[in-house]
């Protein structure tokens, strides 16, 4: 099986088959990150597609100083940050207006309300805090990888995560109070 670097090299030479293989191998990562960052399937599809096209554009200049996956996250994150900073994510648009009492046992309702509160809290975070949190918690990136993906220092990543978690903790405490 060809490595990511070999596929990139082939894609740089115009091999669309190699490019397609690269997309299929990493589409889940790109899609998941975009969906969690943007909160909207259509926007996430656009961003993920654009990310791969940008990767192809830069294929001739690509140098594997970090893993391809980290490089892809960098492209996806920056595209998504541009979109997020222009408008707010739309998790809340996908939530029901009010929870219905017909949804089943109280435990299910409570879980759904809790999940809604988490979504809203995440949605309310500034774009860069949200990006750091998504890359850490959902994509499992290390601080150094997050720093490379976001184009910031490791210290900045720590600060972003600290602020994001404090904000989340405050909002969730308000939710629990009631």
């Amino acid at each position, binding site marked *: 099986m060809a490595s990511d670097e070999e596929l990139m090299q082939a894609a740089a030479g*115009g091999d*669309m088959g190699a*490019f*397609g293989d690269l*997309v*299929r191998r990493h*589409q*889940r990562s790109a*899609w*998941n990150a975009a*969906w*969690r960052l943007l909160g909207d*399937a259509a926007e*996430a*599809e656009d961003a*993920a*597609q654009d990310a*791969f*096209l940008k990767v*192809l554009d830069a294929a001739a200049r690509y140098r594997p100083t970090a893993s391809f996956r980290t490089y892809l996250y960098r492209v996806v994150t920056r595209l998504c940050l541009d979109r997020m900073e222009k408008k707010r994510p739309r998790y809340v648009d996908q939530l029901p207006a009010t929870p219905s009492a017909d949804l089943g046992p109280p435990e299910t309702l409570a*879980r759904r309300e*809790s*999940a809604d509160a*988490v*979504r809203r809290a*995440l949605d309310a975070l500034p774009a860069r805090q949200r990006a750091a*949190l998504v890359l*850490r*918690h*959902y994509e499992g990136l*290390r*601080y150094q990888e997050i720093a490379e993906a976001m184009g910031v220092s490791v210290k900045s990543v*720590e600060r972003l*995560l*600290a602020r994001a*978690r*404090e904000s*989340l*903790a405050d909002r*969730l405490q308000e939710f629990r109070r009631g």
Partner: protein
Amino acid sequence: MSCRNVASRLNAYLDGELSAQDRERVEQHLSECGRCREALARLRAAADVLGQLPTPPAVSEGFAGRVVARARLRARPQPVVVELWRSFPLARRIAAAAALVLGIGLGTLMAGDVTRASPMTSSADDAAALYRLDFLADAPEGSLVDAYLTLTSGANGGGE
């Protein structure tokens, strides 16, 4: 290690990003400090609830195919006219498109004005008048229509 030093390291501790030495010092402090243990518990609770968000939906079917198709389309050579058009700066392209729309609009208006000025009476008369371009007879002096008539009047003997 002071509470302040530990507080600044709690997130990295939670994420397993501390060196072995720093981790040991933080844990030593946590074993002695209830306040810092509470702060860690709060961070951990915030991190844990993130697991309540739903898993993203599966990548849509045909995603890779669509990406490759877009890549192929971009790579396809464009007609010369398209390439030439794209070579112009955006501002110039906008100005050219606006001029074209304005020109078409003015031309349409002028044709409408001329035909309204000379209503037709019968179909036979209409055809004759159309052939002789009678409907242009009332074109204002100095207009494009007037200029056209001036140019063509010698060639067709005044429409006869």
